[in-house]
């Protein structure tokens, strides 16, 4: 019996794509949540946080229903973008984006909230647009929180199991990510193969987190000492 690198590569591909999309959507969302005064803010914050407390199977179940071609959303996505979301890689990405959303949004939002409103106001009086201010003043000043958000989202996507199982199934090269492969191999009593996947995941996650802590320490020290 063999084991191969495919599930691991698929896992990291999924985590990378998911994190990239999360950055595009999550960072602006975090900024908007940090400065909005809408009455609905608590409701929106609760929605963002739901994946933290919901069992992955619950989320996976509803996503499975929504993604199914017989549901209007699944049908609409198939019609508009030609995307088949159930038992496919693009479905996994979409589900992962929803599932890891709070892990990116929370640290980044609190980063934005910790900045003095005087920073944006100073930039505005200097004639800078909101976009220039966001890019050159706000983002560079929340680097540690950005890093934390990106890494948490990435690591969390690597560790996903329930949601992937519900909507992805176990298709080699398509949806068979490492966590599923481990479960599968254990069920088939292939402990060696399971151990291989588990060990690689363990090593990679440990290395990533260690790198983040070291980098964060340097960032914090630089801020503290300068």
């Amino acid at each position, binding site marked *: 019996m063999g084991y191969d690198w495919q599930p691991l590569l698929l896992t990291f591909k999924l985590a990378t794509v998911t994190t990239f999309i999360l950055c595009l959507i999550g960072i602006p969302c975090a900024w908007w949540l940090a400065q909005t005064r809408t009455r609905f803010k608590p409701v929106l914050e609760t929605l963002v946080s739901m994946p933290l407390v919901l069992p992955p199977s619950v989320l996976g179940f509803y996503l499975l229903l929504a993604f199914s071609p017989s549901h209007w959303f699944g049908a609409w996505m198939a019609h508009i973008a030609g995307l088949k979301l159930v038992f496919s890689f693009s479905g996994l990405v979409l589900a992962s984006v929803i599932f890891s959303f709070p892990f990116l949004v929370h640290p980044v939002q609190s980063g934005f909230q910790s900045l*003095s409103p*005087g*920073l944006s*106001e*100073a*930039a*505005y*009086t*200097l*004639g*800078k*647009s909101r976009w220039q201010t966001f890019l*050159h*003043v706000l983002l*560079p*000043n929340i*680097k540690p929180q950005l890093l934390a958000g990106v890494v948490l989202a990435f690591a969390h996507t690597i560790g996903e199991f329930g949601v992937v199982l519900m909507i992805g199934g176990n298709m080699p090269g398509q949806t068979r990510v490492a966590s599923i492969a481990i479960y599968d191999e254990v069920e088939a009593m292939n402990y060696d193969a399971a151990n291989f996947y588990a060990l690689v995941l363990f090593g990679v996650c440990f290395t990533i987190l260690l790198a983040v802590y070291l980098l964060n320490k340097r960032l914090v020290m630089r*801020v503290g000492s*300068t």
Partner: protein
Amino acid sequence: MIAVDIRKRLLGAQGEFSLEVELHIAQGEFVALFGVSGAGKTTLLRCLAGLAEPDSGVIRVDGQTWSAPQTKLPVQQRRVGYMFQDYGLFPNMTVRGNLEFALRKGTNKQRVSELIEIMALGELQHRKSDSLSGGQQQRVALARTLAAEPRLLLLDEPFSALDHETKLRLQDEVLRLQRHYGLTTIMVSHDVSEVYRLSKRVLILERGRIVADGSPADVFGASQPSGKFSFAGEILAIDAADVVFAVTLLVGNQIVRVIATADEAQRLKPGDRVMLMSKAFNPVLIAC
């Protein structure tokens, strides 16, 4: 020329009140806004800058409407130089970076070097702005404000965090730069001596209304010099000494001790703010 006629409801320590200001300021004037905390000074400045919106009324500057019902010129287009109480320097940039970021499109970078030289920031220019002392940050904030070539300079307690010597030096610099560029300037201040030194005109704001408008000498009542001294002070202690009482006061940074009668002492208690007056029959003046 700036014409302001605005109203805005504010929430102060003693409940709601409304800021109601009607005001004309000529080109190149240096005006001080004086008043206790919570009188609406900063709000007035923020309305001028476009960071706060008046409930009603009009702000016009050089014939251009900045604020009126249904019209609001964005902050970015007003070209005000706003120096914030907490400076608002960008911690991710160096001193030079802060100044360069402030430049308008197409401005020669030479202007940054000029300002660095004028404000004596040469040695600090490659330091990150959050590594500077309060006084240094204030100088950078002022330089950055000027780098953007403002048409109107708004200073919110610009010298509050400085020691006496730095304060005097920076005040001179501000005055020189203000005259050099002919900048209309509005400065919020709590400090009578600062107002005297810098401005030709002072407005006193009390609970949102201008209650006095004139030269500092007129407004602070020194137009008819008298032989009397009067100082505001705070009572630190009252001690009985034989038939009289010794009252220890803090006047400015000095602790003085004066005699009070039993009658006076009864009406006072430590922590009271009082005016200390004395006739100057034969004062001694020593240069320092």
